[in-house]
C-alpha cells in the first residue's frame, strides 16, 4: 500500500507524558494511511520541519521554566511562534493549555501567574479543582467528535474561564470550558492521551490537514 504524503508531528518533550501522546498520535497516523513518525522535540531546530506540535500534560511551571529561562529558552518559544504564523497546528492538553493561553492564574497561590506562548485568546485558572485527590473522571459530550461521550480524565486540571469571540468553544458546562479551538490551535483541559479514545487526536490530524 502506498503511503500518502507524510505528516510530521512532534511532541514537546521537555517534561510530561510525552510517550502517551506519541503512541496515540502514531496509531492515528497509521489508521489514516500516514507513516507513524511522531517525534520527541526539545530543540528549536526540531520544530522547523513540523506540521503539528502537541504540548503534553505535565507540570506547566516546569515546562515554562525549561522553555523560557534555560538554554534554548527564547529561541524555542520564538521558533514555535514563528511557525504558528506559517500554519503550524498546536494541540495542548492540560499543562499544554496553560502554555497556549494568553492569561493564566493559580487557584492555590493567588498571585501566581505565568504566560508562556500567549497564542490563544483564552483565560485559564490552574489547579481549579484542587490538588490530586480532587482529580476526577467524567464523560463529556463533544459535538465535533460525534454523539458518543468522550472519557474526560482530569488530573490537577486547569479550567478555561473565558474566551474571546475568535475562539470556538468545543465543550463546556455552565461555568467551565473544557475544550476550545482558535484557528489551528486546539486546547483541552483533560487528558485524551490517557484513554483509548483516539477521536481528539484524529480531530487534531484533520486540523493539520485543513
Amino acid at each position: 500500500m502506498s503511503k500518502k504524503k507524510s505528516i510530521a508531528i512532534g511532541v514537546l518533550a521537555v517534561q510530561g507524558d510525552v510517550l502517551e501522546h506519541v503512541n496515540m498520535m502514531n496509531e492515528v497516523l497509521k489508521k489514516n494511511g500516514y507513516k507513524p513518525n511522531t517525534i520527541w522535540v526539545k530543540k528549536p531546530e526540531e520544530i522547523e520541519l513540523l506540521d503539528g506540535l502537541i504540548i503534553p500534560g505535565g507540570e506547566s511551571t516546569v515546562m515554562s521554566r525549561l522553555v523560557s529561562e534555560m538554554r534554548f529558552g527564547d529561541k524555542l518559544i520564538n521558533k514555535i511562534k514563528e511557525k504558528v504564523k506559517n500554519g503550524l497546528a498546536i494541540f495542548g492538553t492540560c499543562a499544554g493549555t496553560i502554555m497556549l493561553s494568553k492569561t493564566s492564574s493559580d487557584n492555590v497561590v493567588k498571585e501566581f501567574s505565568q504566560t508562556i506562548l500567549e497564542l490563544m485568546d483564552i483565560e485559564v485558572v490552574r489547579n481549579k479543582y484542587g490538588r490530586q485527590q480532587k482529580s476526577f473522571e467524567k464523560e463529556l459530550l463533544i459535538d465535533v467528535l460525534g454523539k458518543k461521550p468522550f472519557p474526560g480524565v482530569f488530573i490537577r486540571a486547569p479550567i478555561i474561564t473565558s474566551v474571546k469571540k475568535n475562539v470556538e468553544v468545543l465543550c463546556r458546562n455552565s461555568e467551565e470550558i473544557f475544550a476550545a479551538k482558535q484557528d489551528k490551535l486546539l486546547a483541552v483541559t483533560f487528558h485524551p492521551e490517557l484513554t483509548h479514545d483516539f477521536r481528539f487526536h484524529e480531530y487534531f490530524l484533520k486540523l493539520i490537514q485543513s
Partner: protein
Amino acid sequence: MKNLFPERSYMKTGESIHQLTPDEKVTRGTNRMKRGFARMTKGGVIMDVTSVEQAHIAEDAGSVAVMVLDKLPIDVRRAGGVARPASIPIICDILEAITIPVMAKCRLGHTYEAKVLQETGADCIDESEVLTPADELRHIWKWDFTAPFVCGALDLGSALRRIDEGAAMIRTKGEPGTGNVAEAIRHIRLVNGEINEIKRLLEVEDYQQLLFRSREMTCSYDTVLETAKIGRLPVVNFAAGGITTPADAAQMMMLSADGIFVGSGIFKSEDPMQRASAVVLATSYWDSPEVVYEAQEMVSEQKAMMGLTGSEMKLKMQERGAKL
C-alpha cells in the same frame, strides 16, 4: 496469551462517586487517576524538602513535585532513633505555599499514618524505607486510598509486589542520604535486566517459566505477564537514592528512569538553588551531552555533599521492607 487469573476485583476499590454539579457524575481515586498523576511527573525531578523555604527553592528551580519529610535522609542517619513523618503543620504550610504537587513520606506498613497524610490533602504518599518501618512484614494495602502512592523497590520482585498492593509509582531505592549513586545504578540495572528476561520468556511463550518467576518473586502472575508484554514496569519508575550531580541524573535517565528523586543531594550542598536548577536541566535534556555539560558547569564539586560508600554505612535503608 491466556491470563491465568480472573480480573482482579480489588482494583475496583478506592473508587467513589462524588457530585460535582447536580447533573454531572464524576469518579475519583481510580487506578487511571493515580497512575495518570505519576505519568504527569515524567521527565521531572522530585526534591526532598523539610520546610516552606526549601519548597519555594525547589519550585523556583523547576522541580516537578516536592517530597516533605521531617529530616533529610543524611540527617536521619546522623540522628539515629526512630524516624517518623513530617509534622502536619509543616505539610499544610507547604501545601498552601506552592502550586506543584506535594508528596509526603509515611512509615512502611503504617496504614493509619498514610490515612492521616491523605487527610492533609497531599497529592501523593510515599511509603518509604527512609523512615523506620512500622510493620516489618506487610506493606500498606494501597488500593483503598484516593491518593496515589509511590514505593521503593530494589529489584523487579519488590517493584511488582508494591504494584500488586496498589502503588501507582515506583522509585528504585538506591541508598538514601549517601551522595553515592552506585546503589541507584545497581538497582535500576537489576530491574531492567529482570524485565528483559521475562520479556524474552514471553517472546518464546515459556509460560511455565513465567509462572515460576512470579512464584520466585512472590508477586502475582498477571503483573509479571503485563510487565513482560509492555517490556517495562506498568507504572512510572523514578530513580532515587544518592543522586547528587546533574550527570548522576542524566545517567539514571539514560538507564531508562522516567524521572529523578533527589534527597539530601540538593539541600545538603552549599549551592542548593544552582544545583537544583542544574539537575532539572540535566534530567530534561539528558540525551544532549552538551546541555548536561552546561548543567554540570553550573555546580561546584567543592560545594557538593560528602559521599558515603557502602562499607562506611552503618544503616542500609534499602534493606528495609517486607520480603514477601
